């Protein structure tokens, strides 16, 4: 009887465990935003999230002339992919430019390839970019600096599971090991 009670207590506790507790990122499963993305790749083909079913997706918004945050986020994604080993093939990293004015298709292609040849860059018109950012609650603003301008923007990386659902928001502070650990859980569908 005591054994049964102990088991019951354990089961109740296990059931009460919040779903996202094992993730390093913030669990955003089921939110009403971040569902659609439809932008052109550097070859001009329109790409959507639906085509990456079966893979986990890391989605990051940034710009090429970003000295600090964007290379750090993309380097983290490349390192996380490496840490996944063979499962790295089941990860798609997507970089959406918030500066389509300066980030030409060619510039984007060579930029993401410098991190990993499989990383995908997407680019829209000013209006398409605005809509994509809005869909993912991404803030961005053009700010003049000296003779040029920079783009202040949200630093969150979004994570989709292999079923194509938005699951996690990774803050810029997380390390590659933590990103890889979350991806392993999503790829193994242990959630």
């Amino acid at each position, binding site marked *: 009887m005591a054994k049964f009670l102990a088991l019951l207590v354990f089961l109740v506790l296990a059931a009460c465990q919040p779903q996202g507790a094992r993730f390093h990122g913030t669990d955003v499963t089921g939110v009403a935003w971040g569902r659609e993305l439809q932008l052109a790749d550097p070859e001009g083909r329109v790409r959507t999230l639906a085509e990456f079913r079966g893979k986990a997706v890391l989605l990051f918004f940034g710009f*090429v*002339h970003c*000295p*600090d*945050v964007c*290379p*750090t986020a*993309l*380097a*983290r994604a*490349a*390192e996380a992919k490496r840490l996944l080993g063979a499962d790295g093939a089941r990860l798609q990293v997507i970089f959406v430019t918030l500066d389509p004015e300066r980030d*030409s298709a*060619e*510039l984007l292609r*060579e*930029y993401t390839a*410098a*991190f990993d040849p499989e990383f995908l860059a997407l680019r829209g018109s000013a209006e398409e970019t605005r809509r994509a950012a809005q869909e993912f609650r991404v*803030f961005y603003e053009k*700010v003049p*600096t*000296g*003779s*040029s301008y*920079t783009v*202040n*923007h*949200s*630093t*969150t990386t979004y994570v989709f599971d292999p079923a194509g659902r938005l699951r996690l928001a990774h*803050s*810029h*502070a*997380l*390390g*590659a*090991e*933590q990103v890889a650990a979350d991806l392993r859980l999503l790829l193994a569908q242990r959630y």
Partner: protein
Amino acid sequence: MKRFATILVLGLAAAAAQAQVSVKDPWVRATTPKQKATGAFMRLEAGEEARLVGAASPVAGVVELHEMVQEGDVMKMRAVPAIAIPAGRGAELKPGGYHVMLMELKSQLKEGETVPITLTVESKDGRRQTLEVRAPVRALRHAPGEGAMKKHGH
């Protein structure tokens, strides 16, 4: 002879002032062929309180001192007139904090190259000196060996 000794002492004092600020581990992030801007990072150490007030480099048309500030989820970048170098503690120019922004690059910066940078530092009494730095170019995907972003040996 006495005069010579005085000159010598003055000379030594000047040398000491010159050696006030030192630069450790400078590096510049590599660029792709068409990229026109990147950041330079380093650690500055000072025996006496000083400030980094300017930077120049022959590889860039415009060089500015920038600071990254995280406000909630948004990282903001802004130009700053100077970066304080407290005595003893020094100043860290690293991703997520300060950097020397190299803009209007004249050519691609490739991994393995060296970028000359001239830093202007100002001591507490307003005297300025320049420091010549030779910063190696590291891969675009380079993540400095710190905290959670630490690289693991292959």
